[in-house]
C-alpha cells in the first residue's frame, strides 16, 4: 500500500497543478495580509477566499486526476494488490499533496501574521475541508465512467455546497420565519461542510454578534470545546462516509 502511495505522490508532484495551486494560495494570502490594515481583517478576507477556492480546486483536481489515472488503476488491479489499498492510496496521495499545498500556501502565512488560536483553527478547518472535498470528488468520479459527466457532477456539487445550499437555507428561513428555527439551523449547518467551517471560524473571531439570535445559539452550541469537537467530527464524518461509499462502488466496478 505504501508503494502505491509513493507512486501516486510522485505522479501528483510531477503534475504541476498542485505547485501552481500552492503559489496561488501563497500569493493570495500574502497580498491579503499586506493589503488589509489589520491582520484580523486580513484573516477574514482570506477566510472568504479560502472557503470558495479550496473546495473548487480540491474537487475538480481530484476528479480529473482519478479519471486520468484510469490506466494506472487498470494496470494495478490486474496485479496482486487489494482494490481497497489501491483506492485508499489514491485518496492518501491526493489528500496529502493537497493538504501540503494548503499548509505551505496558506498555513505558513497565517502562522506568520496571525499565529493565535483563530489562525490555527483556520488552518485546521482548511485541512479538513481539503480532505472532505477530495473524498466527495472520489465519490463523484466513481459515479460514472464518462469523464465529462463526472467533472460536471463535481462542479455541480461545488456549486451546491458554495451557493445553492445557502440559497435554499435562506429560502427555508424566509418561508418559516414565524417559527423559532435557530436550533434547526445548527442541524442544517452540519449538512454542508463549507458552512460548518465558516461558522466555526466566525465564532472564533468573536463576530457572532453580527448574526443576531442565531449567532447566540451557534455561540452556545459551537462556542465551547465540545462544540468545536462536534463540528470537526461533522467534517470527519463527511470525509469518511463519502470515502466509504466511493470505496464500495470501486470494489464492485468492472474495469
Amino acid at each position: 500500500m505504501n508503494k502505491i502511495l509513493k507512486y501516486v505522490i510522485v505522479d501528483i508532484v510531477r503534475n504541476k497543478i498542485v505547485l501552481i495551486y500552492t503559489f496561488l494560495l501563497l500569493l493570495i494570502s500574502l497580498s491579503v495580509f499586506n493589503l488589509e490594515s489589520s491582520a484580523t481583517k486580513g484573516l477574514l478576507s482570506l477566510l472568504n477566499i479560502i472557503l470558495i477556492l479550496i473546495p473548487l480546486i480540491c474537487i475538480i483536481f481530484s476528479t480529473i486526476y482519478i479519471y486520468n489515472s484510469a490506466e494506472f488503476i487498470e494496470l494495478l488491479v490486474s496485479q496482486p494488490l487489494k482494490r481497497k489499498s489501491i483506492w485508499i492510496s489514491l485518496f492518501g496521495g491526493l489528500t496529502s499533496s493537497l493538504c501540503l499545498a494548503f499548509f505551505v500556501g496558506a498555513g505558513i502565512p497565517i502562522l506568520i501574521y496571525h499565529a493565535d488560536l483563530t489562525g490555527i483553527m483556520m488552518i485546521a478547518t482548511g485541512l479538513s475541508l481539503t480532505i472532505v472535498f477530495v473524498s466527495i470528488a472520489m465519490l463523484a468520479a466513481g459515479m460514472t465512467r464518462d469523464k465529462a459527466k463526472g467533472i460536471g457532477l463535481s462542479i455541480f456539487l461545488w456549486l451546491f455546497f458554495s451557493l445553492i445550499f445557502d440559497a435554499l437555507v435562506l429560502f427555508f428561513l424566509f418561508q418559516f420565519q414565524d417559527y423559532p428555527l435557530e436550533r434547526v439551523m445548527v442541524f442544517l449547518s452540519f449538512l454542508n461542510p463549507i458552512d460548518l467551517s465558516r461558522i466555526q471560524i466566525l465564532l472564533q473571531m468573536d463576530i457572532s454578534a453580527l448574526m443576531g439570535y442565531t449567532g447566540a445559539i451557534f455561540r452556545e452550541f459551537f462556542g465551547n470545546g465540545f462544540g468545536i469537537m462536534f463540528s470537526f467530527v461533522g467534517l470527519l464524518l463527511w470525509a469518511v462516509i463519502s470515502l466509504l461509499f466511493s470505496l464500495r462502488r470501486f470494489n464492485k466496478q468492472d474495469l
Partner: protein
Amino acid sequence: MITVTNLTKRFSKLIALNNISLSFPKGECVALLGPNGCGKTTLIKSILGMVLPDSGEIEFNNQSISGKWLYRNQIGYMPQIGRYPENMTISNVFDMMKDMRKDNKGVLDEELIEQFGLNKLMNKRMHTLSGGTRQKVSAALAFLFNPDVLILDEPTAGLDPVSSESLKDKIIKEKRNGKLILITSHVLSELDDLVTEVFYIEEGKLAFHKKLIDLKTETGELKLSKAVAKIMLAQ
C-alpha cells in the same frame, strides 16, 4: 488449476458470459477461440478479478478467487490493449511493477526485454510509443515475474514478424516448463504449433472443447483454422 463454474456476467442488456463452465489444467497451452464479442476477454478479466461476475464461481488452485488478490502473484497478464500511465517511461513502469511485486521471490525473467530490444528504449515515455512497442512492454511484463499462469489476450496482434516469432518461441519454452498458458487470438494459423487444447466460445457459451490432436484427427485437417471451420459448419 483454474476452474470456472456456471459463470454469468451481464453488461446491462448484453449477456457477455452465459452460465459458462470450463477448467484449465496445469501444463497445458489453451487457446480460447470465438468470434468478436463472444466473451473471451470478459472471461479472462473475470479470472483476473477485474470484472466481477454476476453469478458463478472461479477457483484458482481449488480456492475461490472472490475477494482474494494474492493469487494474482502467480499470474502474468498481457492485455489486448496495454494501457499505462502516459507520463511514465518504460523503465519507470518496469521498476514500479518490480517494486509492487517484490514479495514475489524467484528470479526475474528478462529474456523478452532483451529479445525485443526494449533496453534501448527504456527512457522513452509511454505516450510516445507505437502500438507494437506497447505490446512488447505488455508481453515483457507478463513474463517478467516467472508466473505459473500466463494469460495472453491477442498476444501477437500488432507485433512485427520477428518479435512475434520470438514471443512464440518464448511461449513454447514456458509451456515446456509446465506452465498453464491461456491464449486468445483471431489469427488461428499462429496457434498451430503452440496450443494443446482448444475452447471455442460463442455468445457467452462454450461451443466445444477438444484436444488439438483429437480435433485434427476428427476433422482430418492439418491446420487448426480449417479444422475449426469444419467443426463449426458441421454443428
